[in-house]
């Protein structure tokens, strides 16, 4: 098992919440098709795509870091976690641009149901990204001292799995908010 059981309980639980959130989104979309289609048209697709690529790349970094840790390559491990952290930071910056674009266009959480869900869902995801970045920072310090025994590897895997969850959630959010619906 990659990582320990407790972290999978956590991941599973988060997925239960998000599955619910995804279903709520599509249900509400079904009842207000015009609002949601128009809302989607106002989203910046480029930012969404860049964020997706950042997330995917950050996951590559984390997966590579774990491989390196298993081969006891301390420097590579630390640098890869650092790369993932940088991607997370990039994600945050893009989100800041995106949110300020929306806010200056007068679109807020109370504009309509589409934007309520857009801000809330991406907001909750951003909280996950922030927690993930904290975890990555902790993993960097943890990995620095080397000495990758079984417990250490397991803890690194646990942290890595959480980051992959963050990536996974964005993959679905990107599809639901940006891609799905009338082109």
């Amino acid at each position, binding site marked *: 098992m990659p990582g320990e059981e407790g972290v999978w309980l956590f991941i599973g639980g988060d997925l239960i919440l998000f599955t619910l959130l995804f279903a709520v989104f599509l249900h509400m979309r079904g009842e207000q*098709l015009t609002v949601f289609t128009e809302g989607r048209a106002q989203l910046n697709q480029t930012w969404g795509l860049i964020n997706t690529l950042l997330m995917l*790349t950050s996951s590559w970094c984390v997966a590579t870091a774990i491989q390196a840790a298993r081969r006891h390559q301390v420097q590579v491990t630390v640098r890869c976690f650092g790369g993932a952290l940088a991607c997370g930071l990039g994600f945050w910056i893009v989100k800041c641009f995106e949110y300020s674009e929306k806010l200056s266009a007068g679109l807020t959480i109370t504009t309509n149901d589409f934007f309520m869900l857009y801000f809330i869902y991406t907001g909750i995801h951003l909280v996950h990204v922030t927690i993930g970045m904290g975890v990555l920072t902790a993993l960097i310090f943890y990995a620095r001292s080397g000495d990758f025994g079984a417990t250490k590897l397991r803890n690194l895997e646990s942290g890595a799995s959480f980051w992959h969850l963050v990536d996974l959630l964005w993959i679905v959010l990107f599809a639901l908010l940006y891609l799905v619906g009338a082109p």
Partner: protein
Amino acid sequence: MRDLLLTRTTLIWVLLVGATLVSWELGHGVGFDSATSAGAAILIVTFVKVRFVVLDFMEIRGAPRWMRVIAEGWIVLCCALLIGLFLLAR
């Protein structure tokens, strides 16, 4: 550097980026005439991506069988649920 890049991880990343571009095109009118079919296709591609992240990045492929069963089960059920809700939209 080379042995960092020539890995299965990189292959998975390439597949994920490719799938992202496919779903991007589908979301921008390429390939299907009806938005409904495009939407369903996007959701399927999305969960294919999710499956790669779960099996290869999260390493569930090599995890105990019960974990893999639950994971794949969730992927299928969630995908079906979301496609169902999407198609119900009038």
